[in-house]
């Protein structure tokens, strides 16, 4: 049984939160994430997690949970101390802002204490719920679990991630804890006035009371602001976390992490980034004041806050980031062409007779891949050399499966003869595109791979339906993204018929590769560059240069089991 936390009494709208899912606002998806990211990050650092690990956010009241296995935890935020009850019935204090080891079958109670509204329970290894659109955070404004788990319920079981991924734990001295508590108790929010609003000189003089109607969508203030600040409704605009909206009743709402992504109320000012965590700690009844500052000061505050936190409690050293580069080869181009690209990639997808290639080209390609230290992958296709595997072929699914098995085993046989091994399978051309969305073709590929070697991973487009299907079928999966193809805003590939579907500038291909490798919004483990592009070599050089400059290593190491 996997280690887990079981919610006995989740209190009021407790939820799982990490640093959120930015990048999807254009689909109407709020960023979500911890309402007080400072407490989350420090808690994660105390137990050796990366800042972005998921934790339990407990608002306003209390929360009772139990641990199936021994675990390392930290409680941070608006809490004095937790109460730990061991399996023997013995009780002990669980002080906040410290790393604690809790034994198996112990129970932890967390009570929220003023000043402040939210506590965080961080656990070494993090809460290991499925990642939805790049994050494990619940979005409490979208009902019916459309986005990750909603509010936690009694009986919710939260799996704990692998502790082996945790780094060194940090400790805080009494002074550091005091300084964190003091920081989070501040009730003056620094704001930047909105460009549409003529100078509101009085913003600094307001004292506004926080309403009990506040939640993760927004902090509602029950004191009306002077009527000069109340505008009429505007046409719907994008919103920002921290934006101070003034609806018709003149009672401002400071938008929170689960805010709607667009809205029509006028905005008077926006809370600066450095003070957003304070929004998560505002309690009903608190009195809030604003202090107007300029953009340069806001930037300085942001920078200083990062430095302060990093000195107080350094982040876990970053694991070296790596990304695989792959290319389709052995498709009948001159060997010099293929070898030039093999010098630059880490995985080669070798045509195995379906759309191109024969025993001789497979043999040459495998030897060259070995020479250049590349992983060998099988690149089967619809058996359709006339169309280079680029046309949809209507054939009985059993015949396709048989052909795929023949193609993959042909390369396996040749690789074995050369002292190498086929390490993955990536479908080609029309078969690739169709299998990503067609479950019948995805299943056919899965059966073919299983017949050849059930440990072989299948490569597919990051985010495609086929990947989860293969995963569910028990096959390993490698997700890839393209450096030389444009993506639509929703993460799908732009249609090839679109005039702007293909990237032709090496600089842009490199920028896209960096975005794939660093932000990893697509979650891709490998980047593909099309070998038939006249720019393939220039692209690969530009990509390598850009990745190296960003400290990202090109390697297939992380793909090996």
């Amino acid at each position, binding site marked *: 049984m996997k280690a887990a936390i079981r919610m006995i009494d989740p209190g009021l709208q407790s939820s799982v939160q990490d640093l959120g899912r*930015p*990048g*999807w*606002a*254009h*689909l*109407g*998806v709020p*960023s979500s994430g911890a309402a007080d990211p400072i407490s989350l990050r420090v808690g994660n650092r105390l137990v050796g997690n990366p800042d972005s690990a998921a934790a339990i956010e407990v608002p306003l009241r209390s929360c009772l949970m139990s641990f199936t296995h021994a675990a390392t935890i930290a409680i941070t935020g608006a809490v004095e101390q937790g109460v730990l009850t061991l399996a023997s019935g013995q009780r002990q204090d669980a002080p906040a802002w410290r790393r604690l080891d809790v034994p198996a079958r112990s129970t932890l109670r967390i009570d929220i204490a003023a000043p402040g509204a939210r506590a965080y329970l961080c656990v070494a290894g993090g809460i290991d719920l499925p990642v*939805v*659109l790049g994050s494990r955070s619940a*979005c409490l*404004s*979208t*009902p*019916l679990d*459309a*986005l*990750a788990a909603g509010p936690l319920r009694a009986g919710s079981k939260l799996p704990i991630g692998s502790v082996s991924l945790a780094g060194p734990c940090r400790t805080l001295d009494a002074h550091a804890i005091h300084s964190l508590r003091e920081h989070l108790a501040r009730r003056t929010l620094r704001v*930047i006035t909105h*460009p*549409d609003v003529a100078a509101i000189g009085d913003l600094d003089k307001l004292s506004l009371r926080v309403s009990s109607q506040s939640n993760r969508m927004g902090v509602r203030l029950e004191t009306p602001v002077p009527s000069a600040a109340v505008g009429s409704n505007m*046409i*719907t*605009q*994008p919103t*920002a976390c*921290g*934006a101070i909206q003034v609806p018709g009743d003149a009672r401002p709402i400071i938008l929170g992490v689960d805010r*709607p*992504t*667009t*809205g029509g109320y006028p905005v008077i000012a*926006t809370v*600066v*980034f450095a003070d957003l965590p304070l929004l998560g700690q505002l309690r009903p009844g608190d009195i809030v004041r604003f202090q107007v500052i300029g*953009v340069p000061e*806001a*930037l300085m505050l*942001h*920078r200083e806050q*990062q430095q302060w936190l990093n000195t107080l409690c350094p982040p876990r050293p970053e694991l070296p980031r790596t990304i695989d580069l792959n290319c389709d080869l052995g498709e009948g181009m001159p060997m010099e062409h293929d070898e030039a690209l093999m010098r630059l990639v880490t995985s080669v997808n070798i045509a195995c007779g379906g759309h191109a290639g024969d025993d001789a080209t497979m043999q040459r390609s495998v030897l060259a891949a070995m020479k250049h230290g590349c992983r060998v992958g099988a690149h089967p296709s619809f058996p359709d050399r006339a169309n280079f595997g680029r046309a949809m072929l209507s054939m009985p699914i059993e015949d396709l499966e048989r052909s795929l098995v023949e193609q993959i085993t042909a390369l396996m046989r040749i690789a074995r003869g050369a002292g190498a091994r086929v390490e993955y399978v990536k479908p080609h051309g029309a078969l690739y595109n169709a299998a990503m969305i067609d479950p019948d073709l995805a299943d056919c590929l899965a059966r073919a791979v299983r017949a050849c070697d059930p440990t072989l991973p299948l490569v597919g487009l990051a985010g495609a*339906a086929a990947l*989860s299907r293969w995963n569910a079928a028990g096959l390993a999966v490698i997700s890839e993204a393209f450096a030389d193809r444009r993506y*639509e*805003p*929703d*993460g*799908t590939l732009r*249609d090839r*018929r*679109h*005039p*702007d579907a293909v990237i032709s500038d090496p600089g*842009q291909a490199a*920028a*896209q590769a*960096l*975005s794939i490798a660093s*932000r990893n919004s697509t979650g891709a483990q490998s980047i593909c560059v099309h070998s038939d592009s006249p720019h393939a070599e220039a692209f690969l050089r530009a990509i390598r240069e850009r990745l190296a400059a960003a400290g990202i290593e090109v390697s297939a190491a992380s793909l090996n089991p």
Partner: protein
Amino acid sequence: MTTPGSPFDQVPALAWTSERTLRITLGDQISPATSDAVAAVDDALRAAVLPGVSDITPAYASVFVEFDPLTLDPAVAESAVLTAIKSVAQRSAGEPRLIEVPVCYADEFAPDLSDVAALHGISAEAVIKLHTSGSYRVAFLGFTPGFAYLSGLSKGLHTPRLVRPRTTVPAGSVAIGGAQTGVYPHPTPGGWRIVGRTPIVMFDAARRPAAHLSIGDRVQFVPIDRARFDLIARGGK
């Protein structure tokens, strides 16, 4: 006014709404030309792949660019955004997708259809005819995951919102609110008048694309009967 040949009716205006958000204003009212400009700027900004940018969010007449100012210097961000806006003139817009959204207007799915008809002094059939003959465009997505703001509702169907919003509107509900029409992707509270329901799942975070509709799409509502609704809802075609 801009120079002839410019893709913009109005010179794009940049303003900082905070130290991390740059707003590009492309108009001051809801119009097809402004939506074209918004979609073009949105597309150019995405194509520019600026490191440090976390969100590019379009709406009716503006686009917000949110970024991490410690990764991307605000001055650099501003000039990159300007460059992207300039590139719009050279970029060719692709043909918009035409997405057919099947809608069952049967009574059980359309609690407000008869009220809408009565308010306009026409029959329910005439409301359905007007609603399905309209050609709509997705101005942008917002409010809740997968919710598309559709413009192009026939004037003959502009209807005031409910005085008392419903606490829950079923997922897939097709509704009219003021001059707008749209599909509720999830069960949410809502004050628009419900005239039908689609069996299509408008948003699924595990699917790619997650949202059924995308900025710039043209949408056509297609009337279907209850049997067809059930068939599509079960996964048939």
